[in-house]
């Protein structure tokens, strides 16, 4: 080979490697002859601060760093060395460097880990946003960890808390995590390229008018909208032809939600209506292309119309939100979360996370008030299993006779504490337990996760499933960690199962 006999150049992962300096004196300066584009490609692969420091190498290198296409300003213990001191100075320096060069930046990331405290986070975020407004053509991500910048705690120090977001006409992905900052959306300008927006921790003081206007009228390409633990958002109106995914989590002051989105396929509402669910909350949903809905929330009292939803949803997940005691005012006991089921006639996969109520009357009314859509696949998550889950699931199955595939996820038991059952407890409803009237003819496949071999789990399999589901073809049991099936259990399982039914564990 042509290069045999030459001193080979080995990788240098540690600094000061002797191999680096092999025949330096005989070499030409090849790297300085490379084009700026290639130098940028090299410099984005080393820590940003090191890239900046290349400006002292020679005159050729002076301004190279100010035109890097990717800016990662990362402070904190997870950042690669060398360690950034005084992050604000660092940001200022970078912005000064970039203010002279009229070049586009693909991506700008400002990242402050939790171990770093910054003095004026609003100014810093604003500076990054203003650079992005002019230069960034790809992603803008500003992440200030809650411990590095929390305006709820810092506001007392006479600190400015208002962040006026400029319009970001060329940014495609925008994400901002900044606890307690008062975010003001721009009054004019179009976010012409924006396809996704993620806001976490911010608060609005206009009840949500600004964000509703921006998303509905000035983001023609937006596909993904995520709002997490946003405060001061009472009314959210999203009218969008492009939106595909909408996620609202912990938007706890939400009172009115209006979504009109022809392309919306996936929606998550998690812990938004919990405070106002009982009061004047209202929702309107016009989403004819909706495929998946995860609802982990109370249902707004007023479900205004005209609604437009698909005839059959691919997947519906409904979970009761469990509130800490201090927040659970008024609506204690029966929560109305199951009303969301009323909206759908047919669902391909229904996942229910229903609490097992302690007393029988409550449970009965909960289940009997459920309006379960037609669903061939039912996934049931049994929570609070201090009591037997069997009666609840049987009631559910009685209400829905078309289930072909049933999966049940047990939750780990709290065995340490014995909770005595009241006289009307579910556990004592032996009549239901042995109810032979349950029609399980269509049932083909039963899966049980986290199976621990407890008495009610065993009984459920023996008496309900194997005796009643005559067309059953498959039983899958996933034992929880550390649980070994007993021989007796397996023997009985095989004995009771119909011929042609596969048992796997």
């Amino acid at each position: 080979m042509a290069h045999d006999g030459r001193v080979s150049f080995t990788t240098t992962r540690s600094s000061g490697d002797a191999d680096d300096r092999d025949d330096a004196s005989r070499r030409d300066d090849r790297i300085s002859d490379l084009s700026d584009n290639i130098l940028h490609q090299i410099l984005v692969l080393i820590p940003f601060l090191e890239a900046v420091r290349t400006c002292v190498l020679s005159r050729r290198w002076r301004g190279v760093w100010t035109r890097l296409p990717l800016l990662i300003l990362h402070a904190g213990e997870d950042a690669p060395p060398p360690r950034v001191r005084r992050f604000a100075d660092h940001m200022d320096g970078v912005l000064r460097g970039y203010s002279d060069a009229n070049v586009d930046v693909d991506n700008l990331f400002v990242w402050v880990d939790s171990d770093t405290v910054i003095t004026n986070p609003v100014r810093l975020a604003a500076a990054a946003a203003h650079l992005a407004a002019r230069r960034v053509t790809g992603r803008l991500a500003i992440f200030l960890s809650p411990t590095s910048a929390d305006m709820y705690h810092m506001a007392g120090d006479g600190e400015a808390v208002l962040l006026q977001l400029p319009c970001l006409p060329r940014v495609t992905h925008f994400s901002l995590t900044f606890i307690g900052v008062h975010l003001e959306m721009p009054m004019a300008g179009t976010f012409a390229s924006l396809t996704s927006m993620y806001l976490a921790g911010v608060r609005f003081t206009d009840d949500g008018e600004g964000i509703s206007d921006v998303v509905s009228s000035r983001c023609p390409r937006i596909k993904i909208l995520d709002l997490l633990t946003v405060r001061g958002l009472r009314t959210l109106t999203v009218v969008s032809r492009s939106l595909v995914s909408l996620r609202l989590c912990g938007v706890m002051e939400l009172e009115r939600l209006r979504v009109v989105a022809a392309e919306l396929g996936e929606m998550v509402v998690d812990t938004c209506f919990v405070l106002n669910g009982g009061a004047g909350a209202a929702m309107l949903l016009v989403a004819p292309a909706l495929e998946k809905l995860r609802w982990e929330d109370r249902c707004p009292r007023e479900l205004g119309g005209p609604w437009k939803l698909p005839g059959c949803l691919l997947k519906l997940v409904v979970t009761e939100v469990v509130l800490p005691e201090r927040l659970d005012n008024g609506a204690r006991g029966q929560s109305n979360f199951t009303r969301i089921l009323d909206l759908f006639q047919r669902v391909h996969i229904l996942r229910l996370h229903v609490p097992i109520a302690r007393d029988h009357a409550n449970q009965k009314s909960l289940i009997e008030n459920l309006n379960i859509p037609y669903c061939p696949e039912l996934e049931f998550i049994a929570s609070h299993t201090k009591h037997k889950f069997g009666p609840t699931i049987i009631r559910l199955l009685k209400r829905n006779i078309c289930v072909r595939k049933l999966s049940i996820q047990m939750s780990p038991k709290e065995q340490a504490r014995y909770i005595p059952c009241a006289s009307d407890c579910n556990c004592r409803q032996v009549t239901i337990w042995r109810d032979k009237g349950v029609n399980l003819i269509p049932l083909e496949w039963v899966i049980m996760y986290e199976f621990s071999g407890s008495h009610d789990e065993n009984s459920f399999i023996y008496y309900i499933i194997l005796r009643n589901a005559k067309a059953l073809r498959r039983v899958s049991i996933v034992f929880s960690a550390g649980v070994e099936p007993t021989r007796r259990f397996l023997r009985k399982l095989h004995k009771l199962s119909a011929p042609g039914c596969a048992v796997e564990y």
Partner: protein
Amino acid sequence: MEVDKGKGEAEETRKVAEADRDTVTLKSSDGKLFEVSKEAAARLSTVLAGMIAGGSIDDNGTDLKQIGSEALENVVDYCNKHANSIPSAALISSSISFNTAPFKEPEEWERKFVDRLSHDALFDLVEAANFLGMERLLDVTCHKISEMMKGKSPDQIREVFNIKNDYTKEELEEIRQELAWAFYDD
């Protein structure tokens, strides 16, 4: 050795199948000929793909006047190795999780491939990859150079790449003050 063999093969192939060949012949600045599979060339190089599609490939050896024979040999070698390697999925750098357009880390064979190159050969290859629009090869070679820079002081970098410091002392001092935020002693 390999150069001659490549040349011999090239002539042979030309005799056997004048039309409908599945390789292309490339000619280095110093007139040496190299064979490379048409499929690999088109897949790895936007420039060669354009030439193949545009019919501007010369069966007697497409002139690549900017590329020396050693660099072209490495390019061809890379193309062949690339064709034989099984692409491994999920080699995406996880170090910067919030960077969603991640740089794909070089694979083991690619590392070895650039590690064995001499200093000059590495830079020749960077330039050849750039000229031929070979994005992946450019990534791999730039990654190698970035590793040679990483964790080093400006003085050490100058030494590794033989960069001549043409600043005056005053200029240097001025820059260090202007960019004081980037220069401090750890």
